[in-house]
C-alpha cells in the first residue's frame, strides 16, 4: 500500500458539550507523571490519559484511527512521548487546524503524519464530520475525503521537508540519506 495514503476511522475530540477541544496540552496527551518511561510500547496505554472525557481513548482506539482535534494541538512541553504514544497505538494521523511548534516538529521528526485541516469548526457544527466516519488522506498532495459522507476535506499537504522525513521514516534515516 502507498505509504502516502492514510485511511481510517475518524475520532473527533469533542468535549461534553459537543465542541471540538482546542489547546490540548501535552500533559493532557501524556501526563508528566509518566515521563520516566522510555519504552514506546509502554506509552500507548497512557495516550490522552489526562484529557477530560477521553481517558479510555487508548483502550478504545484502533490501528489506523485518524485523530481530529481543535487548534493549537500539543501545546506545552517538548516531550516526545506525546507523539510516541500515538505511534505506539498505530494511529494513522492527527489532523488539527494548527499544532504547537514543538509538537509539530516532534511528529515530523518521528515520521508521524500531522496535518492541518481547514474549516473544521463548520464541518463539525454542520454534522459533516463525526467520530466513526471513514476518512482517506493523501499526505503528499493533501487530497482528502470523508468516504462515509462522500465529501471532500480541506487538508494541507506535507511541506517538502516534512514529506522527505516522512518518506525516509524519521529524522535519523533522513539524516543518513543526506549523508
Amino acid at each position, binding site marked *: 500500500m502507498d505509504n502516502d495514503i492514510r485511511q481510517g476511522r475518524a475520532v473527533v475530540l469533542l468535549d461534553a458539550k459537543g465542541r471540538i477541544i482546542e*489547546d490540548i*496540552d501535552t*500533559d*493532557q496527551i501524556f*501526563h*508528566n*507523571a509518566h*515521563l*520516566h518511561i*522510555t519504552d514506546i510500547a509502554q506509552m500507548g496505554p497512557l495516550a490522552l490519559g*489526562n484529557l*477530560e472525557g477521553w481517558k479510555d481513548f487508548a483502550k478504545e482506539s484502533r490501528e489506523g484511527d485518524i485523530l481530529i482535534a481543535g*487548534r*493549537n494541538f500539543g*501545546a*506545552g*512541553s*517538548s*516531550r*516526545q*512521548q506525546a*507523539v510516541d504514544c500515538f505511534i505506539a497505538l498505530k494511529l494513522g494521523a492527527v489532523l488539527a487546524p*494548527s499544532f*504547537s*511548534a*514543538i509538537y509539530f*516538529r*516532534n511528529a515530523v*521528526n*518521528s515520521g508521524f503524519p500531522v496535518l492541518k485541516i481547514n474549516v473544521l469548526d463548520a464541518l463539525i457544527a454542520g454534522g459533516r464530520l463525526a467520530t466513526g466516519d471513514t476518512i482517506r488522506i493523501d499526505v503528499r498532495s493533501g487530497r482528502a475525503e470523508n468516504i462515509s459522507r462522500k465529501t471532500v476535506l480541506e487538508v494541507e499537504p506535507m*511541506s*517538502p*521537508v516534512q514529506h522527505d522525513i516522512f518518506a525516509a521514516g*524519521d*529524522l*535519523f534515516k533522513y*539524516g543518513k540519506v543526506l549523508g
Partner: protein
Amino acid sequence: MGRTIIEKIIQAHSRDEAAAGRIIWMDLDVRSARDFGGPNVVKNFEKEYGGAPPADPAKTFFTFDLCAPACSLKYADNQQACRDFARKHGIRVYDVDRGVGTHVMIEEELAKAGGTVVGTDSHMNILGAVNCFGQGMGDVDIAFAFKTGRTWFEVPESVKVVLKGRPAAAAGAKDLTLFLCRELGTKKIALSSAEFYGEAARNLDLPGRITLCSMITEMAGIIGFIPENGPIAADADAAYGAVVEVDVGGLTPQVAVPPSPNTVRPLAEVRGLRIDSGFIGSCTNGRTEDFARAAEILKGCKVKEGVMLKVVPATRRVYEEMLERGILETLFQSGAIVVNPGCGGCAEGHVGLTGKGEVQVSTGNRNFPGKQGKGQTYLAGPAVVAASCVAGAIAGPEDL
C-alpha cells in the same frame, strides 16, 4: 529587504536564505538535554549512532533540573544513564545541584546574544531574555543535534508587539506577562517570533525579561525578544507578519485562573478566594529579585496556619544570593519551606503536588488541568503569592 531579530540570528547560523517561511538548516552553538527527555536522547543516540561521538562534546551539555535529586528509582536510573553517556563522550553535566538548566546557561554565559541553543525544555525560549535564540525540542531532534550539530527549522514570521503606557507601580513583570497572555492569547503571536517594544518592555530588568520571555510558550509563540537598547536591532525595513499594540497603561496585578495561563483576571476579581498552598519559584519567577520581593512582604509576618508556602530558587547561585542577603532567613522565619534549586513545583518533580480540592497560588507558568496534581492552580507574581500566603486567601500586599 531588511531582517527581523530572528532572521538575523538564524542567518548568522545558516548557509541558506533565512527569510520568514523558509525551511533552512541551522548550526547550533549549544545542544542540551535535561533529565526528562535526556534518557530518551541517549537511547535514540545509541540506537542510531552506536558508540560514535557527538559532533562536538564541548558544545553538548546535560542539565538536570526536574527531579533533583532523584525522588524515585526510575528517575535515578534515567539520570545515571545520562551521566554514563556524558562520561563516555566527555560531555559536561550540570547535575542535580545546579538548578534550572536555562538559568544556568544564562549564568554560565553558554547562552550568548545572537547564539542558537536547543534543549529538551519547552521553555528554552526563555533565552530570548538575553537575545539568544533558544528552542525546546523533543528527544529525536536533540539526539540528531548532538550527532550533527545542526537542525532544520522553519524561519518564523515576526510580530511586533508595541506596549503603550506605563503599568501601575504595584504591577511587576509577572503581571505584565500574564496580561499579555490574556491579550495575545494563543493566536496573536502563534508560531511567531515576538519583538516587544515600548517603555514597559524597555524598562524590564533581566529577571523581568526572563519572566516575560519564559511565557512566550504559553502564548504559542516561538520566542520573544526585547530589542530596544540591546545588542541586536531589527532593520528599519524588516517585514513583520503583524503589528499589535497593547495598552498597559495603569496595569494592576493580574492572576491567571484555571484552566489555562490565558484565562487571566485582575487581582480584584479573585481577591479573597481561600487558598491551601503557595509556590514561589520556577523558570518564570525563580530569580533572587523575585524572592527579595516576596521577602519584603513576608518580613515579620507568618504564613497563615494551615497554608504551606513552597519556595524553590532557580539556581544554586540564586540560593547563595538569598543566603547572603538574608532572604533565606526571612522566608524561613515566615514559615516557608525552602528547598534546593530546580524545576520543583511545576512538573511532578521533587516539590509537592496538589491534592483534589486543593487551591494553590503559584508563580509558575502553567496551570493546565492536572499539571501539578488534582488541585486548582492560580498563577500570579511573587508579591501576590507572598501576600496570599499570609492572608490565607488570594490577596495583594495592600490587603495585609
